[in-house]
């Protein structure tokens, strides 16, 4: 990023320009943050008091009751466990697959390089669609299993290409000298290439983890009826869809939605929203410098 020093004799119009930009940016920050802060305040505010309105970014009658209500649902506890589990397992499996494929594709002496690269690229553009995929999952007997969360998405061409272009930037001589020292190709991958690929791996790990944590549609489609495989996001969508105006409720009313209608659904909804969001908030700012770089790499022709 270029930092251009403001010269003393800058014309008035240029200084005005700075002011306008600063104001717009402040506006952007408010528009982005206010909704989150408002939801946070509502989640800590007494639910009957919230109905009166006027809550902005601070709770008026502070309470932890909304949170104690949601944590008394078994569905939410199970959902939390499953969400954490799928995030950890899905991220690890995805990283192994993407880094191994990327490493082999970055090896100029690998015979299958061209074929595998094309083979993977095609998967980015051609997809069979919802119904054939649904029937496949059914045929594989993966309905109502945990496996359906982590297995289908293991290979992602985009992730492979991001890591591959990163490995291409590492001097190949390092791998060659390891080879001369008698290391086999797997050792080179594990000892030489992986440690130098950390920034790209961190980016991909972030993408994978966020994707896993945020997924709800697979639970809805494949595991909607097994309560012990529910996820946090799915619990949130259930509440969301059951309280939206005009929905006919083709979603099985679990004990959570039943209890919700007896308390104030709005405050409890806000509390669940916060619980689902917090882990993301804790992670992404620290990985920022990695993903900016990683995303830029991914934009390079795959």
């Amino acid at each position, binding site marked *: 990023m270029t930092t251009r020093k403001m010269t003393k004799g800058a014309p008035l119009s240029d200084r005005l320009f700075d002011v306008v930009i*600063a104001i717009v940016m402040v506006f952007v920050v408010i528009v982005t943050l206010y909704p989150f802060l408002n939801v946070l305040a509502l989640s800590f505010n007494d639910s009957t008091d919230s109905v009166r309105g006027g809550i902005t970014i601070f709770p008026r009658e502070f309470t932890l009751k909304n949170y104690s209500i949601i944590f008394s649902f078994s569905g939410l506890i199970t959902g939390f466990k499953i969400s954490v589990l799928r995030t950890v397992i899905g991220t690890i499996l995805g990283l192994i697959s993407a880094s191994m494929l990327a490493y082999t594709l970055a090896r100029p002496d690998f015979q299958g390089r061209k074929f595998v690269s094309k083979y993977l690229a095609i998967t980015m553009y051609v997809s069979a669609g919802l119904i054939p995929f649904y029937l496949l999952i059914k045929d594989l007997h993966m309905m109502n299993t945990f496996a359906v969360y982590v297995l289908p998405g293991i290979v992602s061409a985009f992730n492979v290409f991001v890591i591959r272009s990163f490995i291409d930037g590492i001097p190949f001589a390092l791998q060659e000298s390891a080879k001369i020292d008698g290391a086999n190709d797997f050792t080179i991958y594990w000892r030489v290439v992986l440690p130098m690929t950390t920034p790209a791996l961190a980016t991909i790990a972030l993408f994978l983890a966020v994707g896993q944590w945020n997924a709800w549609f697979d639970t809805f489609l494949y595991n909607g009826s097994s309560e012990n495989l529910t996820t946090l996001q799915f619990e949130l969508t259930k509440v969301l869809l059951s309280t939206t105006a005009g929905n006919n409720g083709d979603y099985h009313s679990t004990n959570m939605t039943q209890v919700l209608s007896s308390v104030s659904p709005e405050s409890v909804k806000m509390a669940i929203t916060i619980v689902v969001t917090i882990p993301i908030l804790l992670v992404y700012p620290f990985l920022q410098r990695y993903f900016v770089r990683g995303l830029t790499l991914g934009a390079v022709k795959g």
Partner: protein
Amino acid sequence: MQAVPTPHPAASRSVGAKKSNFWKVALRNRYLYMMSLPFVIWAFVFSYYPLWGWLIAFQKWKPGKSIWEQKWVGFDQFKALFQDDLFYQVLRNTVAMSVMGLIASFTVSITFAIMMNELRGMFFKRAVQTISYLPHFVSWAVASSIITRMLSSDNGVVNDLLMWLGLIQQPVQWMGQGHLFWGIVTVSDVWKETGWNAIIYLAAMAGIAPELYEAAKVDGASRLRQIWHITLPGIRSTIIILVILSIGNLINTGFEKQFLLGNNLVRDYSQVLDLYSLQYGIQLSRYSFGTAINIFNSVVSLVLLFTANGIFKRMTKESII
């Protein structure tokens, strides 16, 4: 694809030598094969094999029988699809939301990136950037929950603000009116993705030589003129590539936001192709009909992608696929 291509050692030899050489190299590559083949097979199962399922769009598929025991009906499912009025409504919604999203997301994120680039003060800049990414990382479930709260007719901030400004007398039922739905989806998308989309433009801008700006300043160009004559041309090729990629994705607008923000009141405007296939294919168990919808979707996307890429090739002599 920048890896250094080393010429195949066997390239110039006779066929027989080539063959034995192939196995020799394969043996030498054994670890590389062991590390890639399992995933190649994996991709086959989950990305290629489902394409086989396209066959059922030409059948009257019923569960419980193998694909060969089903009744073949030719193009009947497609005929039914093209005669369904709902199909045209759904297609209209899909294209409308895609086009609106495309235009809004490009103009807003490019404008935002330019402003970020002009922003002085590293701390402020970094803070704005970090905050602007935030909505990208939350799920559509969370985003929908937040958006419906903000737009709510009881104490939603948007209604409160508009009433306070005196622009409306009564709270507007934002989520309950079909003709507002496309706009709400577009604005929600802009809110969620602008900061993220701007990253790539900012990276392109960082690559512009600072001397260009220095020279322009010496010539007395104002900041706006510098943006127009240096910054924008500097990110031109990035913009073109991204526009083409999104044209390829024009009818894959996604369905999560429509599913989660929509409700029965706005159904005529919120239903998109994927939801249509979900409803007919899975909820009504018309698997063959649902698959026909998916095939239509995939084929149109591919045609769009190749067309866009063809135009791009002609313009720049380069290919993005």
